């Protein structure tokens, strides 16, 4: 145990030792520490200002820096290493059924307008769904249709082809081939949940309609 009242009888610790003390105090204290605080905590006769100056130099270029905040001192991560304080996690999620269907329609019918997509799906397509596909860089805007209102069209991108391993959107199997491949066999009863390949969206078609509301 330290006995502060006796310290004055001894000489102040050597500067190197004072530097260690300042280092330890600044490291362990929960907030920046003023020189005055340091003086109060260190043995009598210490010169925290000198120790701070040495310590600051010692940490120059290191991963942490001794910085002055107002008239207090603290260690802080070097500015260029801030990126280490982030932890990135990538979460993989399955694309929603609405998005898959919209994407499929664009792929099979490109260039296609939003009205046409809605026509085919039989439900309105939310802005968010197409935005999501554009953000994924699987869909982009095509040329405007030369019909009244000059609606924009959507087409699939090279990124889409790469992701799905296609040379060309025309390589997508047609309905006949889909049927031949057994992909069309399970006709769901009307009004029921179509199939359970996407458990998150078990409200089926109707779920899509509310995307506009969301």
């Amino acid at each position: 145990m330290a006995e502060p009242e006796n310290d004055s009888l001894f000489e102040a610790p050597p500067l190197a030792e004072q530097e260690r003390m300042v280092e330890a105090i600044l490291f362990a204290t929960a907030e920046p520490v003023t020189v005055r605080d340091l003086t109060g905590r260190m043995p009598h006769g210490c010169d925290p200002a000198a120790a701070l100056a040495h310590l600051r130099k010692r940490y120059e270029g290191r991963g942490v820096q001794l910085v002055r905040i107002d008239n207090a001192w603290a260690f802080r991560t070097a500015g260029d290493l801030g990126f280490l304080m982030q932890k990135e996690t990538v979460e993989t999620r399955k694309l929603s059924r609405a998005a898959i269907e919209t994407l499929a329609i664009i792929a099979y019918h490109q260039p296609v307008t939003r009205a046409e997509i809605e026509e085919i799906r039989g439900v309105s397509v939310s802005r968010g769904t197409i935005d999501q596909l554009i953000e994924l860089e699987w869909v982009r805007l095509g040329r405007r249709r030369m019909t009244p209102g000059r609606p924009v069209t959507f087409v699939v991108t090279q990124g889409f082809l790469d992701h799905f391993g296609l040379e060309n959107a025309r390589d997508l199997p047609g309905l006949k081939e889909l049927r031949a491949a057994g992909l069309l066999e399970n006709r769901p009863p009307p009004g029921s949940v179509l199939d359970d390949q996407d458990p998150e969206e078990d409200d089926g078609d109707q779920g899509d309609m509310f995307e506009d509301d969301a």
Partner: protein
Amino acid sequence: MNSDFQEDAARVTDRLAAEALIVDVGAFEGPLDLLLTLSRTQKVDLRQISILALAEQYLAFVEKAKELRLELAADYLVMAAWLAFLKSRLLLPPDPEEEGPSGEELAAHLAFQLERLEAMRKAAARLMARDQLGRDFFARGITEDVQRVRSVKYTATLLDLMQGYARIRTRDDFRPFVMDRDSVMTMEQSLDRMRRLIGFAGDWTDIASYLPEGWETDPVKRRSATAATFAASLELVKEGKVDMRQSDIFAPIHIRRRADRDG
């Protein structure tokens, strides 16, 4: 004479020690703890301890406690009985008829237990004498939280895509693709229509009755109009303009204007 005196003196010391122990009986954590304390009076390394002497000390302690009418916990008495048995085994020549471990084996095990307990106590003391976090050395005071940046990666397979497309295209009995906008009713259209009509619906009404004229017969048009009406109804529920109910699965869906929000 001299040796007698010494013996007496020793007995007095023992007795005083035993009395002190009895006063403190509550402070012992069971018979083993007491035995360890007693063993210290032998002032020898625990490896050289005389278990016989220790057994006698313990039995004397229990006798004393009885004299003083002190309530001893059952485990103290069990230990006393066991030590009395051990003592007899140690004193009597081994009976070749008897099965089981010899007195020496039992004594050796008790000595081991005492030594081990003593060792653990010393280890505990050394452990607690170490520098401790938050007392002698300290962790970082200003911590920086690691920010978690979560990015979501969406995936879909070619199969998802094809099945998705197949799903849409098979809903209409594989009818050829035509741009028949006139059989599709959007939710916006339906919402417009219902906003106008809802003011008249004071009581529960089947939403089917809100289908526009000419849309109820053609199945394609009816399907679209029903869906749009339903969606529009939900929108109105969300806005607090109507209440909605369905008594059972596939039963008709009814809506009613919400009276308290009138105006």
